[in-house]
């Protein structure tokens, strides 16, 4: 049983509250872009809404969920109390203050710069300070995760760190590396410009620093889903983790390959050479490897479960899986969406083919499918999996949980499949309204309406999700008490784990070398070349 349940619940409820509001904005945005007449539809409102939706989903939902889940894993997998829970609360408060600043500046129209805030567009300085506070709060979490693992290793010499915790610390370390780029951008360029201390910015430099963060942040969001794939899904399916060592290897590969690849977001930029773009493109291809390894290991782990339950033949084990368990169902749906999201990503990362889709709806489709689909559905499953533990109550209704998961997956497909071909046909993202009278784009109309319908399904599913969690808290505590969350055991426990796969010192050295190779020159070139700077453009006041 976990001890700091209030701390964990505070984080997770903050995450899901932000999610619940942001998804309503998302539906309204789809409606505005569609040929249907939407209320309050002005460009000001639209860009305000897109900024709020992106910031809430990409920064608030993710960061708070990952922190809360990390605290849960640290207590339940290590079976020890969290070090310094007061510090953890301090991190939470910093994150809340930051979130309030972001929300206040965005809602008052002083920060309509999108969650990517590309200079020289510039918002109220409080918006950026809010983001910094959220990040600083998460750094405290990173430190606590590392300390928790280190203490446990001291107390349990010779025993491998449980996989769920090892992966959580991998994510904490990944996040520390990831945030270096955006922190440098904010502290040295963006915030001084927002305060008016500097009048111009080096735009190429800011884009490059942001790219440092922009890819690896996706792996930060994704790793909790992978932790559930490896340690929760096989357990729920009655199986065993096929190979503990290879699971560790996959998380290390995410740490190594997730970082030195950010330039793939700048393929269509004029400030970098083909040489460095190509190098980072090649590294990007490598990040497919840990995902494919995961698909294999997790499928094999589930197969063990299916066969232990009497499944026979080549595929008979699939039918024998306990699909009525939300964790198993969510894993299946997540894998299904992963194929679509993965295929879309393959096109994005192709140096040449990217030209067909860069900054079109294809890109929005890709990250909604892979993040909103494959990853967030696992956030739901994790919540369902650990809520009994956090509240001491059994799930009020598994039927509603399953219905919610199905509706989410179907809604995501209905919403984002049309975006793929609209993007290929030249529909750009982040535009409030289209002229459907133009004969070359009038055929988009029915597909846009289909997306609105998909968005509506997602909103209903989100509402069901919130309801499913809230109803736990109102459930009466009966005689039946939920047991503690168990993590999947390896097929053959007790296999010695090499020291390298039980710590991170070696891998940090590798990351340092890779990042130095990938980013030293692309960043240094701006100090050598000294390109002309651009004048800061404030969005929150008229010049």
């Amino acid at each position: 049983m976990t001890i700091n349940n209030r701390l964990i619940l505070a984080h997770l409820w903050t995450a899901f509250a932000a999610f619940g509001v942001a998804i309503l904005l998302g539906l309204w945005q789809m409606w505005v872009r569609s040929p249907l007449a939407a209320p309050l539809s002005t460009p000001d409102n639209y860009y305000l809404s897109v900024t709020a939706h992106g910031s809430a989903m990409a920064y608030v939902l993710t960061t708070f969920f990952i922190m809360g889940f990390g605290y849960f894993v640290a207590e339940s997998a290590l079976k020890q109390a969290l070090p310094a829970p007061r510090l953890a609360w301090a991190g939470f408060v910093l994150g809340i203050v930051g979130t309030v600043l972001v929300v206040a500046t965005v809602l008052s129209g002083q920060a309509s710069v999108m969650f990517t805030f590309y200079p020289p567009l510039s918002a109220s300085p409080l918006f950026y300070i809010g983001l910094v506070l959220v990040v600083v709060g998460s750094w405290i979490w990173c430190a606590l995760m590392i300390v928790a693992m280190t203490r446990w290793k001291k107390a349990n010499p010779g025993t491998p760190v449980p996989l769920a915790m090892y992966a959580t610390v991998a994510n904490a370390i990944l996040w520390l590396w990831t945030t270096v780029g955006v922190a440098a951008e904010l502290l040295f360029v963006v915030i001084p410009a927002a305060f008016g201390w500097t009048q111009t910015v080096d735009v190429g430099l800011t884009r490059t620093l942001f790219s440092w963060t922009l890819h690896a942040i996706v792996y930060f969001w994704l790793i909790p889903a992978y932790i559930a794939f490896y340690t929760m899904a096989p357990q729920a399916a009655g199986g065993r983790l096929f190979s503990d060592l290879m699971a560790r290897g996959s998380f290390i590969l995410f740490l190594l390959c997730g970082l030195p690849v950010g330039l793939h977001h700048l393929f269509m930029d004029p400030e970098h050479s083909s040489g460095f773009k190509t190098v980072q493109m090649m590294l990007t291809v490598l990040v497919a490897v840990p995902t494919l390894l995961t698909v294999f290991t997790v499928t094999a782990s589930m197969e063990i479960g299916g066969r232990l339950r009497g499944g026979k033949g080549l595929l008979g084990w699939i039918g024998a899986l306990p699909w009525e368990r939300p964790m198993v169902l969510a894993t299946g749906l997540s894998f299904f969406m992963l194929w679509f999201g993965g295929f879309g990503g393959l096109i994005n990362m192709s140096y040449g083919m990217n030209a067909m889709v860069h900054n079109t709806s294809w890109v929005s489709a890709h990250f909604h499918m892979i993040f909103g689909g494959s990853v967030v559905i696992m956030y739901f499953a994790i919540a369902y999996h650990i809520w009994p533990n956090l509240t001491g109550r059994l799930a009020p209704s598994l039927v509603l949980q399953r219905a919610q998961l199905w509706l989410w997956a179907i809604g995501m497909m209905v919403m984002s499949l049309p975006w793929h071909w609209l993007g290929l046909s030249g529909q750009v993202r982040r535009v409030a309204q289209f002229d459907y009278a133009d004969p070359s784009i009038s055929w988009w109309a029915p597909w846009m309406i289909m997306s609105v319908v998909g968005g509506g399904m997602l909103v209903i599913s989100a509402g069901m999700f919130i309801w499913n969690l809230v109803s736990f808290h109102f459930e009466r505590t009966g005689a039946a008490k939920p047991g503690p969350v168990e993590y999947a055991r390896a097929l053959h426990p007790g296999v010695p784990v090499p020291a390298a796969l039980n710590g991170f010192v070696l891998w940090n050295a590798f990351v340092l070398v890779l990042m130095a190779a990938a980013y030293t020159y692309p960043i240094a070139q701006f100090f050598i070349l000294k390109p002309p700077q651009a004048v800061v453009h404030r969005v929150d006041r008229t010049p």
Partner: protein
Amino acid sequence: MAVDEISAVQNERRWALAMGGVAAVMLAAIVWAGLGLHMNPPSNIETVDPNTLHVAGEFAENNLGTHVDSAGKITTRIVTTQFAFVPECVVVPQDMQVTFRLASPDVIHGLIVVGTNVNTMVVPGFVSQVHTVFDKPGDLLMPCHEFCGLGHGQMVAHVRVVPIADFRPDGDGRVTCDN
């Protein structure tokens, strides 16, 4: 379940090698597409001062649009600015190599010529250069694709692709949508 950890790892290693092979094939396809299909994103690292580009030089107003130089090289110069392309319509010939050169005096913009491989960011401080060949005549849509402020949605231009016979430069080598 006669699978021990060693053979499990061996299985996984085989799978990892196979996936490494898949990654290598993907890489080969990407390189082939990049080189073979002449899909070369802008990577020219050429600087220009956003604050003075309209005053004189290549991006002064009278130099914008399509121009054929004495050697027959066709260049289309466009300035992307809040919230319009200058000029808002450009003419290019079908089946000939065309070079786009773009610059921004204010914030980041971007553009895609719908249905072609022309796609680039326009970053203040740099000139974006893209080469392409248009294989069909017609009016192509060219929207701005990077959020550049409240008027971003109105930023749309056209590329008019004409058969070579209809592509007639004037005495200075210029071709515009009006003539």
